[in-house]
């Protein structure tokens, strides 16, 4: 005997079809895009949050929101910027929530505690770098990472971080100066 089809079934089925079609790209395009961007995004989120478990959750959430976004992209760069913007906002929300929960509870740093594969010297250098980065503001960390690890242009960084392109240059300059000092390079013409 055939199962009777009720009005609610039809309504639900069409909603499910809409959901599947609601993604902004098909599976093959998504998988290719994911393979190109996931590792870089993981590293970016790891640098912003420092918590492995959180990074995995945020990675999944970022790609989900990206897929559900009703947006059209001109090119790969535009698409990638949008992905990083979503990730930045999610990481910022998590930070705000954790700050609201308890001002003394920091976002984890278990990624930084994992030993490097490149020997003791590299591990030490990495630890110094991590210490220096942790003393920067989250926005400064994001800015420097996008500029020097991802090779993003000033306009792209401003777009991802929701800043005006004109205000980015001085902010980037200050962040770079601060990190260089923390890494042990004395300011030129100033105090040692």
């Amino acid at each position, binding site marked *: 005997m055939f199962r009777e089809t009720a009005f609610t079934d039809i309504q639900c089925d069409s909603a499910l079809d809409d959901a599947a079609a609601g993604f902004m790209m098909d599976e093959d395009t998504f998988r290719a895009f994911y393979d190109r961007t996931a590792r870089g995004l993981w*590293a970016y989120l790891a640098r912003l949050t420092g918590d492995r478990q959180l990074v995995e959750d945020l990675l999944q959430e970022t790609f989900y929101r990206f897929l559900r976004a009703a947006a059209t992209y001109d090119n790969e760069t535009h698409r990638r910027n949008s992905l990083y913007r979503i990730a930045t906002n999610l990481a910022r929300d998590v930070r705000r929530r954790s700050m609201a929960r308890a001002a003394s509870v920091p976002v984890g740093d278990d990624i930084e505690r994992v030993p490097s594969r490149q020997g003791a010297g590299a591990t030490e250098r990495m630890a110094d770098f991590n210490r220096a980065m942790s003393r920067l503001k989250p926005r400064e960390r994001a800015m420097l990472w996008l500029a020097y690890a991802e090779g993003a242009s000033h306009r792209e960084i401003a777009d991802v971080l929701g800043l005006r392109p004109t205000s980015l240059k001085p902010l980037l300059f200050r962040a770079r100066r601060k990190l260089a000092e923390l890494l042990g390079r004395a300011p030129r013409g100033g105090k040692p």
Partner: protein
Amino acid sequence: MKPIDCELESEVLAAVLQNRWPDRVDASLREHVAACAICADVLAIAGAIDDAREELRARAVVPDSGRVWWLAQMRARREAAQAAGRPITAAQVIAFACAMSLLGACFGATSAWFQSALRQTASSLAGLRFQALLPFAVAFVSEHGAVLLGMAAILLVVPAAVYLTMLRE
């Protein structure tokens, strides 16, 4: 005004990222970096950030793209089903209320017992003198004011709580 960027910054960055610094770059670029605070900062941080990037990317454990796609699809379907279910639930509540009203009206129209009880209540209410009830009501409120206030609060708070819970869901 102090300069905040340098036109050779990108050249220094490229030299560091391509492992050309310091041996495989022009002497003029080395001289420039020695004199330029901005390029010296870029030199100091670019190598460290690039090393950290390589290290983190090597450590990255990203789920398979097929799994991410599948999970996203499942979640989209679940959300779509919830969204589709919401108006159905509202319609069901309205339909239930209408059916109960209709049932009540039919019962009232056909039951002789209900009609006689209704008539009796109406006639006793017509003979009631509200002025005589006023002192009793005042005494009741002053004696059980806190209880009445609590009941009124529950009547207001419970529906509001239910509404807010449903809204969050």
